[in-house]
């Protein structure tokens, strides 16, 4: 198929390009697919994810929406109700709060309250995450709000391969799916990957990024890289650390977590969102309930402190997880 052939197969793609390709390919494959968001057409999106879409697919299918997040989410719901597959971009995931009610109360519940009469193929996606000096409103990881709102699938890929494969799966899933795209990964050179021509990544499966026997680090998004770095440091100290990248939060792959803890007996969960009621806590809770007998040490969390993300670098570093903090927690668990 031409759109696939156009890929520079063999060349490496960064995270952003992988996402861009997924959208473009699905738009080409699915004439019922529509994209909607702020500045996604003429501009091509704040980060350029949707560049070229307007020229290729036209104004009717690539909608430059007003700055109206509630309308965007509600209209996505209406379009999906009336036969469309919708890719809805949040300019920054932080602004999702302005469309919150439409997402959690109208969109997420539609299948449930209609007893399955209506399924909504909607993918909401947008740049997320801290570490870039974005401060309070351009740094959020607010996935826990949505994990606590039944009816949404929630994903957070950490590699170009997963970003593309999961997005394609999401666009075919038939449920509202919310994808946290870590913007600090968009153009990260050292994670670029060659991608196969045509593939998807299944929703709901975690992946082991590094195998190990002494300790399991569970994470997703950019914290996966902190975990991998920590594993390196710990390896030098003689500890063998396994790193699990969840990729999918809802649904969650407890089997993968359990299998790892069965080996290691020790676990640290790492996540840049605020601690209280964050997803790391959910993982720890499930582990302590489901894997109680497997645990040789208390499961720990390394999360953001219970604060917003501050601007100044000193402050940002202070409140967020990083490799050193993961190493410190890991040592504590290993020494337990």
């Amino acid at each position, binding site marked *: 198929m031409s759109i696939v052939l156009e890929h520079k197969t063999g060349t490496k793609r960064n995270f952003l390009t992988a996402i861009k390709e997924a959208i473009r390919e699905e738009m080409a494959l699915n004439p019922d697919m529509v994209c909607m968001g702020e500045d996604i057409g003429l501009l091509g999106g704040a980060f350029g994810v949707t560049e070229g879409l307007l020229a290729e697919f036209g104004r009717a299918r690539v909608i430059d929406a*007003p700055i109206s997040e509630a*309308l965007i989410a509600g209209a996505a719901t209406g379009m999906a109700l009336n036969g469309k597959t919708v890719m809805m971009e949040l300019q920054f995931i932080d602004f999702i709060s302005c469309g919150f009610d439409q997402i959690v109360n109208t969109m997420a519940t539609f299948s449930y309250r209609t007893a*399955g009469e209506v399924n909504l193929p909607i993918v909401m996606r947008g740049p997320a995450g801290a570490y870039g000096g974005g401060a309070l409103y351009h740094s959020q990881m607010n996935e826990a709000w949505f994990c606590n709102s039944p009816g949404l699938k929630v994903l957070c890929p950490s590699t170009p391969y997963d970003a593309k494969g999961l997005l394609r799966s999401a666009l075919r899933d038939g449920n509202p799916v919310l994808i946290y795209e870590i913007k600090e990964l968009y153009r990260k050179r050292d994670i670029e990957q060659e991608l196969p021509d045509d593939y998807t990544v299944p929703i709901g499966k975690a992946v082991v990024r590094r195998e190990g026997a002494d300790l399991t680090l569970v994470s997703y998004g950019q914290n996966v890289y902190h975990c991998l770095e920590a594993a390196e440091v710990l390896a030098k100290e003689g500890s063998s650390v396994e790193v699990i990248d969840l990729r999918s939060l809802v649904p969650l792959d407890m089997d993968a977590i359990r299998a790892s803890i069965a080996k290691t007996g020790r676990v640290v969960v790492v996540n840049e969102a605020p601690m209280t009621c964050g997803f790391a806590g959910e993982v720890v809770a499930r582990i302590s309930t489901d894997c109680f007998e497997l645990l040789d040490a208390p499961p720990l969390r390394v999360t953001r402190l219970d604060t917003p993300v501050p601007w100044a670098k000193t402050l940002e570093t202070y409140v967020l997880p990083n490799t050193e903090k993961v190493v410190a927690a890991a040592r504590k668990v290993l020494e337990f």
Partner: protein
Amino acid sequence: MTPPSHGAAAVQKRIEKTGDQALPRQALTPADNQELLRQLYLARYFDVRLIKEKKRGRLRGTLYSSHNQEAIIVGSLFGLEPTDWISPIHRDMPAFFLKDARRGWRNPERNGMSIEEVCSQVWCKATSPGRARDNWSHIGSKTKRIIHSTSMLAGTIPVACGVAYADRLNGGNAVVLTYNGEGSTAQGVFHESINFASVHKLPVITIVENNQWAYGTPVELGSPSPDIADRAKGYNIPGLIADGQDVLDVYDKVMAAVARARAGLGPSIVECKTFRAYGHGDHDDDRAAKYRPEEEVERGRSRDPIAVFKRWLVEHNQMSADEAQRFSPEGLSASEVTDDDFPPEVVQYLKEGIEFAIQAPVPPAEEGSRWVFAEGPR
């Protein structure tokens, strides 16, 4: 403590008649008008019957009576095409079974809900379109083109925009009618949606049932203008005002908006001036008496939509004065009317629906955890 007032007495004055000679109503035949009247009876009977059932403790949830506001529902639905979409809310229960009812109440081809479906919903049974998962007016049907609302007021208008946008992409020519109370137009999403609809000239028509009260809050505290139609000015779209007690005026104004929408000229707001017969919900009937001035209540009750329409029919020689006397629930409260005040076919129609609902099973418990996510076609 008397509420501030835009002056309820002045409401009537502000209902501008279009004065247009080519009113849509000219196309209605005497038979159509008889059907309109029958639908008014049906909507009223449905309401009074539910009030009675509720009073006897047979129903769960809150009942938001559409008593006295039926002309809005009946008049706005009457001229629609089967392929049009609607989105009724809490005070619009009769809309579910009146949609496309002109093609025959019992017509299985009809693009509206059957009375059995609606009664099943009210009785909280597994045979309801939503299998009794959400309550009362929160049902809908994709095939019958009724948008499923939530409790969040004005929350269905953006959905209506999406439906309309998709319909255009699908090559359709449908209009989408959304219903709202005047109080709900203060919601932010109302603005976001009408703004978008106007920018994209979407065929979305917002019917505002201005019954002067949003629960215990008078319109004066919810809107700077007593005329909600004024909100349209901010979006460069028509804001029509209809006499919500006059089924033909509602029909006219809505059909004017529909014609405009179908011609690709975009959305309209049609404000229907009306009056809430009871409290906000059945739980509020006693308290309403405290916050709503008695004179306002009396003035409001004096223009029952059934009476208004019968008067017109008599004046226009489409009904004799005697006939007009025959079934006269007008002006009477739910506790005062009896089945004899309604045409037998109306009573019979609803009776069958209720019977069906009463016999129907409750949803099995295990369904509680189903359909959080898609399971494939039901």
